[in-house]
């Protein structure tokens, strides 16, 4: 019973407890949800322990118990540099989401928080599961609460969005299930590390077709979740229709499930296939970067704009992963966290504005800076973070990704960097249309400045933006160490296109 | 084989033909009772096969089987006709094509 198990199962217990709260006492369920999520966050802080001064090899807090005797499905969970921060991101954002929804959600409060907490359970599980079957279980579990969050508490077209979201993801993941089973039939085990070991050691020799098909089965499931360019259309709908907290969880954590899966499964398990496919994946990613930015630029709806910006940002992540360079991978993972923080914050702020003005149309605002200076300052900072201003978090991620891409192939970097320009275009334009100019009469009547609760929800994120931007050493080392391992794995059995350009510049990094 | 013996296959063919006729009756006739009777015809055809086969095998088992078939047929007849009665009570018709309120 490690602290990891506690972090994982606290939400589940919280969910069950919430079910017992009487329906007619909304505040009780609110408080309960807040308490549970905060507890979870606190216990999750304990996970940092092993990574405090060093980045240890292998999985920490590993727990490997038998769940189902045959087929051998095990409750196998563990933590490494890759999942560490993602788990913390989840546990941090959940209480924030609870706070954000405090006033926003009035109907069916109890159910709402129950789903939210259950969602946390699923998400944390996804990042911790080391048994592929278990992974799939959590993957699907996280689907259901989000489906209800969107479908019940969403906006006008919520039902369409909810079903679209569910079917899109489900359709992708069933293929992954098939692949998992196939791997099991070949290896007789669902254990992630075991299978990877077999593949790298060559004890499990997959034919080229097998590898490609399996890779695709996994990849499509993840690519839909990420979402990669042509598979992204569920995202805007889901984001726009979801309630604030839903959008936050969706953008900040659920999208990362896809990217996480790419790094965790696709690359190490099918190195050759990944490298071969990167020839068309990377163009898609870059298309996504530019395309997402351009489409975001012309959105009349705030949430949709942010949603498309996510498509653009996640394009960077995919680009970084499939550049197969240390910098690229580190950047990708870091960018996942950054996007989680900054886009999460953006959605929260948009939610605040919606609570006041009750419209998501950008045209409905303008001149907000006058009645709500602090809101606008916070929004400005978040905007700057998300357009990758140095000393704020996104910059580091984007820089590393682009550097990695440039090492792999300079042309990619050139095109991807256009996305950085465009991000400034659409975000600043949005900011100008929302906050600058003279406030119209009803804007100044409806918009008021941040309340204490709203501050409480935003402050951690703002702090993180600066921290992650200015002192990355507190975050990157575990990631780097883990990525280095993954990079080695990804070279297994690959006799082609291992990048030589970094080798030429044999500058030994300064150690302090 | 001597003059006045009949090839077994003829019996089987006969049974096949009768079976087919039963099917035909089921498909062509529109009166529920007639349709039901065509089923009986099919069962009879089957019985013929049973008996014929058991002649060839020199076993009585086929006969037993057809005996049971008869019993079952009788039971079915009772139940089936009861059902037909209820249908008629509610619909005042034996047109089989009238009984298709539930479709698609």
């Amino acid at each position, binding site marked *: 019973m490690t602290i990891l198990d506690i972090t994982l199962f606290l939400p589940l217990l919280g969910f069950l407890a919430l079910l017992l709260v009487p329906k007619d006492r909304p505040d009780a369920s609110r408080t309960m949800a807040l308490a549970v999520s905060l507890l979870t966050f606190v216990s999750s802080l304990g996970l940092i322990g092993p990574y405090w001064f060093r980045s240890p090899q292998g999985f920490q807090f590993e727990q490997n118990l038998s769940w189902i005797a*045959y087929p051998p499905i095990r409750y196998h969970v563990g933590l490494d540099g890759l999942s560490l921060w993602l788990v913390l991101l989840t546990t941090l954002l959940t209480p924030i989401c609870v706070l954000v929804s405090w006033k926003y959600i009035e109907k069916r409060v109890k159910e709402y928080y129950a789903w939210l907490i259950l969602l946390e359970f699923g998400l944390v599980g996804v990042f911790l599961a080391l048994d592929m079957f278990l992974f799939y279980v959590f993957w699907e579990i996280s689907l259901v609460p989000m489906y209800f969050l969107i479908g019940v508490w969403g906006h006008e077209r919520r039902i369409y969005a909810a079903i679209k979201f569910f079917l899109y993801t489900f359709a992708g993941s069933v293929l992954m299930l*098939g692949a998992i089973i196939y791997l099991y039939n070949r290896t007789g085990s669902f254990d992630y590390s075991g299978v990877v070991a077999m593949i790298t050691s060559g004890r499990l020799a997959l034919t080229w077709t097998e590898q490609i098909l399996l890779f695709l089965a996994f990849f499509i499931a993840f690519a839909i979740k990420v979402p990669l360019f042509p598979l992204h259309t569920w995202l805007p709908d889901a984001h726009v229709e979801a309630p604030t907290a839903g959008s936050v969880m969706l953008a900040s954590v659920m999208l990362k499930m896809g990217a996480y899966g790419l790094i965790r499964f696709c690359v190490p398990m099918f190195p050759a296939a990944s490298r071969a496919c990167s020839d068309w994946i990377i163009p898609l990613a870059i298309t996504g970067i530019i395309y997402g930015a351009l489409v975001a630029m012309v959105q009349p709806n705030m949430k949709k704009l942010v949603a498309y910006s996510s498509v653009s940002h996640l394009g960077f992540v995919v680009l970084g992963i499939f550049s197969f360079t240390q910098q690229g991978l580190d950047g990708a993972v870091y960018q996942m966290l950054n996007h989680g923080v900054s886009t999460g914050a953006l959605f929260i702020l948009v939610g605040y504005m919606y609570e006041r003005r009750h419209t998501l149309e950008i045209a409905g605002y303008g001149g907000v800076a006058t009645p709500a200076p602090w809101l606008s300052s916070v929004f400005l900072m978040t905007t700057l973070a998300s357009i990758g201003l140095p000393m704020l978090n996104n910059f580091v991620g984007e820089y590393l990704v682009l550097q990695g891409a440039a090492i792999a192939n300079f042309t990619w970097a050139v095109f991807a960097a256009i996305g950085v320009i465009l991000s400034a275009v659409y975000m600043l334009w949005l900011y100008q249309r929302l906050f600058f100019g003279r406030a119209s009469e009803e804007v100044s009547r409806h918009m008021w400045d941040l309340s204490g609760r709203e501050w409480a929800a935003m402050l951690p994120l703002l702090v993180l933006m600066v921290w992650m931007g200015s002192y990355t050493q507190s975050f990157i080392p575990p990631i780097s160490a883990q990525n280095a391992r993954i990079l080695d794995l990804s070279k297994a059995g690959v006799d082609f296109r291992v990048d030589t350009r970094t080798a030429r510049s044999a500058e030994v990094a300064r150690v302090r | 084989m001597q003059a006045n013996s009949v090839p077994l296959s003829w019996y089987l063919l006969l049974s096949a033909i009768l079976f087919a006729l039963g099917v035909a009756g089921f498909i062509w006739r529109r009166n529920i009772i007639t349709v039901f009777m065509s*089923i009986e015809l099919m*069962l009879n055809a*089957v019985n013929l096969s049973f008996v014929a086969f058991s002649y060839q*095998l020199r076993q009585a088992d086929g006969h037993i089987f057809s005996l049971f078939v008869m019993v079952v047929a009788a*039971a079915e007849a009772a139940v089936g006709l009861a059902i037909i009665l209820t249908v008629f009570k509610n619909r005042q018709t034996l047109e089989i094509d009238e009984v*298709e*309120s539930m479709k698609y």
Partner: protein
Amino acid sequence: MSANFNFPLPDEYVRFLPEITLSAAATLVMLLDGVLTERSKRALAWFAMVGLSLAVVACVYAYQFPGTAFNNMIVVDGFATFFRVLVIAVGILTVLCSESYLRGERAGPGQYYALLLYSIVGQCIMASANELIMVFIGLEISSIASYILAGYLRDDRRNNESALKYFLLGSFATAFLLYGIAWIYGVTGFTNLTEIRRTLMTPETAPSISLIGVAAALMFVGFAFKVSAAPFQIWAPDVYQGAPAPVSAFMSAGPKAAAFAVFMRVFLTAFNPIANRWQPFVWGSAILTMVIGNFAALTQTNIKRLLAYSSIAHAGYVMVAIAADSEIGTAAAMFYLAAYALMQVGAFAVVTYFVRQGERYTSVEDLAGLGYKQPTVAAMLTIFLLSLIGVPLTGGFFGKFYIFKAALDSNLIWLTVIGLLNSAVAAYYYLRIIVVMYMHEPGEASATAPPVSPALSLAMWGAAVGTFVLGIFPSALLDFADRSANLVK
């Protein structure tokens, strides 16, 4: 003419104990119905429950004495026991569902429960039959009983129609089955499955493949019809839609499971030697069944009919397992049928609760807002639907998982892919129901929903718990299925 006359041993009676118990209980119920007053007839439900529970005990006890009985007429093995218990469990759930329904319809419970129990007797016989004649008789007992049940409310036009269709088409298909039996008897000289198998295995006695094929084909028609596998699924929607809701629940689970049991026993023992002949056809039939079931369900508005189509689709998944033609496949099919029975009967239980007197509310839209008027019931239905979709931690998911695992084991890659995609399609219409329940404003149907009767809620809870147990701790059942999957001794 040899009269090898030997008295049956006590063990043989023990092996037949469940059927005996059930028939006894059934007869008692029937007789009690005559003597009891209207008020006290309520008790019959619980009486039937007792009978069924005893039968379960009998099954377990009989399992202590595995082997054949009455000159190879029946065989008691894991497989048989599994399905016996399964159909009896379905019976229990059905009784629980029916109790309040019958009261609502003011229909006499006596004969109803008697018929139900008899029909279960038939299914138990099917489950343990080792001889085509037993198969035939068991099938007929089960079917005839359910014909009557389907038309039980004889003043209801839908009931009549359903009964008539079921009856006519059922006996039509049975005729094919019989014809097939006649053929197999003719070409092998046996009606005993083990004997048939032996004959086919030994080259010198083995008759022409195509003759066996014809026989197998004709029997396939009969069985496929009973399990509502394409292209013989056509009757199912009409019948399930028309029959009384609890009966539909029963028919979509019990007889189907029993029919699958026979199907597997016949085709995996007797016709195993010619598996390479029928396996591809099962393959095609599986795909067709899944596709028809799922796609046709997409546009259904009547919830009973929708569930009927979904039951067709699920039969398709089981066919996938059979197409795998392996012990794992058999085990998968067994497990899946158990899980399926729970979730399907559960879903129908909710329908039973909801339709009200005269089955007024059968449209999906009528469920609008149920999630807020009757949260528990809605939650139950949600659980069953999620399980039908195949969301993890539910029996439905694990069953699917296990089936596709088996299919991949036998390298049926495309079948698996199609099946997986089908389950994605299926998600749509199940989700629609959830949408209506939680995301639409309550309509008068759900506004006027009465409180749930204890028996019914017991059924729902039972099914729900079972669904979760099969999803979270499948090991016990799975091990049993695996151990008893090798039909070929």
